[in-house]
């Protein structure tokens, strides 16, 4: 993917839906419909910041039936590298942004006999679109939505209206937690579980599903990581024959792109595996932050996901 393939959009709606989450509606500048997508898809939003361009993945939360606008929900991150703050503070009605075509790394299983959706906080966003895909489909489903407190329950009215008894709410403030064990131990054969939320919640669901005997093919999850801040380091790109400096607050991928070298990507959040790059030389340690490589692959140290991972070294040579 490169910026040449982006779509120019205008912000046509903004709503503060919780103290931390803003809901944006984006319409194509060229008019007409945006590309077709399925529930669970995300887009990359390209934000022209003052000192650098931010490219963040956001799930599409609107109905896949409605293509005149895309809807995204952006949570203001406490330790933002700029992207979420840009969306919250700099974007207004009429602002113009670029977006990449939707990609689905979190699609519903088409032949499941039942779907169990588990959302924590902002993790509700991909599920809002997945639910649209489930309406009228005749396949049973239920949504378990956990939030800090009532004021943080984004899109709750919409969910209550459309999902009725299929919606199960859990408020941390009331001491309510999702009983993963009892939930996952009692599902009929052919059920698929989907989880999106904080790392702890995702890890808990994956571990509980495994202990209940669920096979991996029935467990789906998505979490985009923001590239963490780290020490600066140098990288040498073997094919381009250039040396690139990676500053503390800029990701390896962003630094490589800024040097004029394109790396294929779909998510920029450590999930899709598209930016998987071979490591040719290293005199220190790789700091893996992705969800794509297995622990064994990470330990091997011969490849890296430059979108979220860094290195602690004097010299890193990549096959780029």
């Amino acid at each position: 993917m490169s910026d040449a393939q982006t779509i120019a959009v205008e912000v046509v709606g903004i709503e503060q839906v919780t103290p931390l989450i803003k809901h944006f509606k984006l319409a194509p500048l060229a008019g007409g419909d945006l590309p077709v997508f399925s529930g669970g898809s995300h887009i990359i939003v390209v934000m022209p910041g003052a000192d650098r361009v931010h490219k963040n993945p956001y799930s599409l939360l609107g109905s896949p039936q409605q293509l005149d606008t895309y809807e995204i929900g952006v949570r203001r991150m406490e330790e933002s590298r700029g992207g979420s703050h840009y969306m919250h503070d700099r974007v207004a009605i009429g602002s113009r942004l670029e977006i990449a075509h939707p990609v689905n790394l979190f699609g519903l299983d088409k032949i499941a006999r039942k779907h169990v959706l588990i959302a924590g906080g902002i993790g509700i966003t991909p599920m809002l679109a997945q639910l649209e895909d489930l309406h009228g489909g005749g396949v049973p489903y239920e949504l378990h939505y956990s939030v800090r407190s009532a004021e943080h329950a984004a899109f709750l009215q919409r969910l209550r209206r459309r999902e009725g008894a299929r919606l199960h709410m859990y408020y941390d403030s009331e001491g309510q937690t999702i009983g993963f064990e009892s939930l996952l131990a009692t599902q009929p054969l052919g059920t698929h579980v989907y989880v999106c939320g904080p790392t702890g919640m995702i890890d808990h669901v994956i571990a509980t599903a495994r202990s209940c005997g669920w096979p991996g093919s029935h467990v789906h999850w998505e979490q985009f990581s923001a590239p963490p801040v780290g020490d600066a380091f140098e990288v040498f790109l073997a094919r381009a024959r250039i040396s690139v400096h990676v500053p503390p607050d800029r990701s390896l991928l962003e630094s490589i792109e800024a040097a004029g070298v394109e790396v294929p990507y779909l998510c920029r959040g450590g999930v899709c595996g598209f930016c998987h790059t071979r490591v040719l030389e290293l005199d220190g340690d790789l700091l893996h932050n992705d969800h794509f490589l297995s622990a064994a692959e990470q330990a091997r140290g011969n490849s890296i996901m430059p979108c979220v991972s860094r290195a602690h070294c004097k010299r890193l040579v990549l096959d780029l």
Partner: protein
Amino acid sequence: MLVTGIKSKPVYAPLQADTGGRYHLMLGSGVGAAPLLRVIAEMRSAAVPSLQYTQVLYAPDGGAAEAADDQSGATAAVAGFRAAALGGVRTFRGTPALLGEFRSTLERSLMGTRLYVAGPESFIGLAMKIALEFNLNKDEIRAEECGTLARRVYCIHCRATTEQVRTNIVSCVGCARWLLVRDHYSRRLAAYMGVMVDAEAPGELPPLKQVFL
């Protein structure tokens, strides 16, 4: 007309216990009892609480043809299942009765169930067809082929299925066309595809050979 080297031909592997599962459902036909008893022994030595959550559905007569000469083996197998202190052992006369119970068992089953199937390929195919309807994936099913290689053959012309086919070509039970039995397998139909063998030159048939024994 490609007959062999087709990727849809199922590949089977020896059964192994999957102790990652919470419940274990075993289907056996005829000589398929042996691999199941082997898995049960494996579970016992793994010392996980799997056996009490294990159910066996077994049809001793299996592929009808071999039933006559293997009656004693089947009786011993049933005794072996009964001695293993499993959650349940049920025997059936014939594959259709077993598959009927299999379907209603799946209706009641929970996520965490692993399926083990052992028997002739046609038996495995019919069981897999039902498992597929319940959205069981590859990582929930294990199958070991043993016993006859006789095939179910689906006539692509009249859509009838001819059972127990042991020969390279067969006269279709539906339309009497001579069909070439291909390796092209349909999981949905649980059958190999049969195509008219003398369509180009009517009456010219290759020699009839026993190949699926």
